[in-house]
C-alpha cells in the first residue's frame, strides 16, 4: 500500500481539468501504454499575452500519475509560457503534499508533458530526437533525460534515477550505465591552483584544517540539519564523512567546492576534499 497524502487522494478521486480542448493551441503527449503510464496535455494559449488560459489532460496510469496531471494543470493555468516552464517536477510533488519516492516519476511525467506541449506550440519538438542515446530500453529513457532529471533533483544513486525516471527499473541491464552517467555528473572537477603555496609543516596544516572545519564548516552544515566529520587527512587530501541530513541528501557540487575553497584559503595550499562512502 502506497502512503499517499490526502491531497494525492483527493486529486486522484476528483481530478481537476480532465478532458480535452478542441483545437487546442498546444498538445503534449508523453509516455505510452506499454510503459504503463501516458499523459496527453492540451493547452489554450492567449497569443498576445502568451498566457495559458486553459489546460486539460487525459492520463493513463496509477493514482499518483492522475493526481500529478491534475496538479500540473492547476499549477500552470494563468501563467505565461515562460513562467510555466519554471514549474519543476518537484513543484508538482509539493503541490500534492509530496509523493512516495518510488512514484516521483509521475511528477516527471507531468513536467515532460508540459515541456512537450510548449515545444509543440513554439514549433520545435522537445521529445526525444533520433540521435539521442537511449540508456534504458525497457522504458525508453535517454541519457539526456537522466542527466537533466539528476541535475534538477540532485539525484546521486541509481535507485533515485529509477524512482524519478523509471530508467533501470525493468531488466536492470542499464544500471551500470546509469551509474557511469551519475559519476560523470557528480565528480568534482580539478580545483583551481592557489597562487603561492604557504610553507606549513604537516602538523600545522592538519591543525589549521581541523580548526576551520570544527569552527566554521560544521556549524554551517549543522544549521541545515546536516553534519560532517573529518575521517582522514593525507597530504593535501581531506576525506570527510557526511552525517545527518547530509548523508541522505546530495551534498551539492557547489557546497563541496566551497569547503574545498575555504580550506585552500586557510592553508594557502590546494586542498582536495573527498567524501568517504
Amino acid at each position, binding site marked *: 500500500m502506497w502512503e499517499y497524502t490526502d491531497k494525492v487522494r483527493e486529486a486522484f478521486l476528483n481530478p481537476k481539468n480532465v478532458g480535452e480542448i478542441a483545437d487546442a493551441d498546444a498538445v503534449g503527449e508523453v509516455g505510452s*501504454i506499454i510503459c504503463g503510464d501516458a499523459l496527453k496535455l492540451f493547452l489554450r494559449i492567449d497569443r498576445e499575452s502568451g498566457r495559458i488560459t486553459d489546460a486539460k489532460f487525459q492520463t*493513463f496510469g496509477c493514482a499518483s500519475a492522475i493526481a500529478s496531471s491534475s496538479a500540473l494543470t492547476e499549477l500552470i493555468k494563468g501563467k505565461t509560457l515562460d513562467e510555466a516552464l519554471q514549474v519543476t517536477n518537484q513543484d508538482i510533488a509539493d503541490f500534492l503534499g509530496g509523493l512516495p519516492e518510488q512514484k516521483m516519476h509521475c511528477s516527471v511525467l507531468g513536467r515532460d508533458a508540459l515541456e512537450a506541449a510548449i515545444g509543440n506550440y513554439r514549433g520545435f519538438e522537445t521529445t526525444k530526437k533520433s540521435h539521442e542515446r537511449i540508456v534504458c530500453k*525497457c522504458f525508453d529513457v535517454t541519457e539526456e533525460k537522466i542527466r537533466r532529471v539528476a541535475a534538477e533533483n540532485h539525484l546521486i544513486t541509481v535507485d533515485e534515477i529509477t524512482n524519478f525516471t523509471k530508467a533501470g*527499473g*525493468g531488466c536492470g541491464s542499464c544500471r551500470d550505465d546509469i551509474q557511469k552517467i551519475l559519476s560523470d555528473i557528480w565528480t568534482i572537477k580539478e580545483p583551481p591552483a592557489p597562487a603561492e603555496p604557504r610553507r606549513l609543516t604537516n602538523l600545522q596544516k592538519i591543525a589549521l584544517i581541523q580548526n576551520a572545519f570544527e569552527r566554521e564548516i560544521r556549524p554551517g552544515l549543522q544549521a541545515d540539519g546536516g553534519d560532517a566529520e573529518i575521517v582522514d587527512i593525507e597530504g593535501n587530501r581531506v576525506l570527510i564523512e557526511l552525517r545527518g541530513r547530509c548523508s541522505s541528501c546530495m551534498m551539492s557540487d557547489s557546497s563541496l567546492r566551497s569547503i574545498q575553497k575555504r580550506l585552500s584559503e586557510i592553508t594557502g595550499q590546494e586542498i582536495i576534499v573527498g567524501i568517504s562512502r
Partner: protein
Amino acid sequence: MSEIYLDNNATTRIAPEVLDAMLPYLREYYGNPSSMHTFGGQIHRKIEKAREQVAALINAEPEEIIFTGSGTEGDNTAIMSAATASASRRHIITTSVEHPAVLNFCRVLGQKGFRTTYLPVDTKGQLEPGAVEHATDNETALISVMYANNETGVVFPINSIAETAGEHGVLMHTDAVQAAGKIPIDVKNVPLDMLTISGHKLHAPKGIGALFVRKGTPFRPYIIGGHQEHGRRAGTENVASIIGLGKAAELAAKNLSEEAECLSRLRDRLERGLLSSCPNARINGDISNRLPNTSNISFEYIEGEAVLLRLNEHNICASSGSACTSGSLEPSHVLKAMSVPHTAIHGSIRFSLGRYNTGMEIDRVLDILPGIIMQLRELSPFGREFLHGGKDQPRE
C-alpha cells in the same frame, strides 16, 4: 460498512473455530512440548493431533508432515534439500510463473552454480505438454512446479509432471500454498515427493506452514538446532498456530467440495457480470483448469492501481498485477510470461474469494466496479479513443 474482502489469495481471516482452538494455548497452556513435566509434555499430544489433521487434508501419513514457519520456508527447505541431495545432480527445473518463494530461491541457486530451467507458459498460463519431460536430463535434481498459480488460479497437471519426475528418478516438489484446502489433493495418488502448505491461506494464522515430505525421500533440514519435528525442523514449536493449522485443515477437508462449488458459483457470477457490463475485459488464465475462488480480469486501457484505490474507497479489497502495485516498475511476471497484450497487462485485477463471501457482496462489486472502469477510461487517452471511437467531440 465493513469491508468486502476479495483478496483471499493474499491472506484469509482466521476462522472463529480456529481461533477458539488456539486461545487456550496462548493463555493457560503455555508450556514447552519438549519439557519433562506434564504441564509442558501434554501439549506434545495436541501437536500430534494437529499433524494428523493436516495429513488428512492431503491424504498423507502424519509422520510425513513437518511444521514450518511459513509457506516460503517450506518452499526454501524443499528446494534446498533436493538440490543438495546428490552431488552429481545440479539441475533444477521450475516454471516462470512460480511464487517468489520458489523463483528467487532458484535464482540464488543459479548464481551458486546450479543449472536452472524456467519453463515458459502459453497464453492461458498453462505449461506445454511434454515440456517437463523435454527439460529433464540425468543431471536434474528437482522439478518444482506449483500446484496452482496465486495470480491466475491456473492449476497445473501435477499428476503427470510427478509421474515424469518419477520415471527419471528426479525429486518432485510442489508449492500447494494456493491449492491446499481449495481443491482435493491426494498424495497417495500423485507420486510427488514434497508439498508446501501455508496456514494463513486457509483460515489459520500467519506464521505457520507445513511441508509434506514423503516417507523415504532424502531430506536435509534447513533450520538447524534442537530435536523438534524429529530433527527435521529445529525451533520450539509455534504451539497455538500449529493447533490452529490443524483445526483449519480439518475444517477445509470437511467442507472442501461444498465450499469449492459455492465459491466457483460466486466467482462465475462476478465474472459474468463484469464481462457483460464492461466491454474489452478479458479473463487471464486457463478457465477450464482453475481454482474455484480465483478470477484474474484485465480491463483494457486503464491501470490496475487506480482501479484498486477507487474500489478501496468503497471498502472493496482486491489486488492487481499492474506495475504500480508491485513496487517494481514492471507488471506481474506471471502475466508477462502469459504474453498478456500490452493494452491489458497494466489493467489486471485479481479477485480471490473465500469462505465468508456472500452473493450480496458480489452484487455490490457489480454495482460499483463498472462505473469505476468507465470513469478511468474517460480519464485515459487510450480509453477515450476506445469509448468514443477515435477523434471525439469536444467535451464540457
